[in-house]
């Protein structure tokens, strides 16, 4: 699934990375611990989190994730926004809580990796 379709279907607010919305989203991962994402997320995953620190962008870039969705209408910190812009990483916001958002992503056909 292409990121643009998810953005449209769920009405995500795209803060950065508009030029990268044609990325293929291969799966999803939800976590609020960076160390867990570093260890367990997969390339092409869409990352659902409430963390707004700039390290999220470094982690997403290093893991080649498709993008980050902040839940509960959380706003990123200024340096997070700047860094995401610099790396053209899609940073998006949903007003939904994580449980609801992930449920809707699942309904769209997105899956996580079960090992």
């Amino acid at each position: 699934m292409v990121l643009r379709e998810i953005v449209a279907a769920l009405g995500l607010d795209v803060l950065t990375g508009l030029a990268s919305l044609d990325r293929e989203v291969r799966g999803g991962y939800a976590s609020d611990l960076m160390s867990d994402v570093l260890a367990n997320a997969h390339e092409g995953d869409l990352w659902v989190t409430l963390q707004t620190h700039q390290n999220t962008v470094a982690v997403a870039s290093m893991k080649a994730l498709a993008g980050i969705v902040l839940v509960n209408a959380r706003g990123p910190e200024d340096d997070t926004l700047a860094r995401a812009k610099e790396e053209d990483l899609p940073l998006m916001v949903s007003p939904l809580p994580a449980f609801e958002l992930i449920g809707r992503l699942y309904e769209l056909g997105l899956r996580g990796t079960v090992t």
Partner: protein
Amino acid sequence: MNVLSADLHIHSCLSPCADRAMVPSAVIAVAAERGLDMIAICDHNSAENAAPFRRVGEAAGIVVIDGMEITSREEVHLLALFPDDASAAAMQDEVHAHLPGENDPEFFGEQWIVDDEDRLVGESPRLLIGATEFTLDEIVDRVHRHGGLVIASHIERPSYSLLGQLGFVPPDLDLDGLETCADAETAGADLPFVRSSDAHRLDEIGTGRTEFLLEEGTLAEIALALKAEGGRRIVRTR
């Protein structure tokens, strides 16, 4: 006794997120210029640069405490302050044995180990920005066993702080204090508050500080001041 002005949370060029200009001569010069008597070098999950900073500080009349900002498995930052190089090194060995991952400078930044002359003598290959496998309790216990103090970092921040990650200060966590790096509500807490800068750049040094009434600038004296014992105390934070 003397009032000593301390900034107990300064990162060096070993922290991947810190400015490359955070080398001994520059940090000590700015600390002196800004009237600090005491600083602590607290890099993420490593104390490899503390000794050179301490020696350069000594020559300039500034006390440098060996420190480390340790990341718990809950991704809470805790400042650990040590009485000497040996205890810091011993705790560092434990941290490094429980710190997974390798740094990728392209994404997280470079991790410079320097000497007393600001020369680059090595780079840490570890993922210093990452989290240790230790729980909060384990970190507190281990640091105390090495004679150190543990202060919860920047508790007013949403990220990497005790309040941000857990939402409360666990009542049975044996902390020695709480740190703020900005104006924050501190009334009603059972633990002493210090204020520091969490400087990652030279111009941030001393922008948060704690004035202690101490006999001399040592960790043992700070420990007394945090407990308000022996006439030692925190005079003010700003």
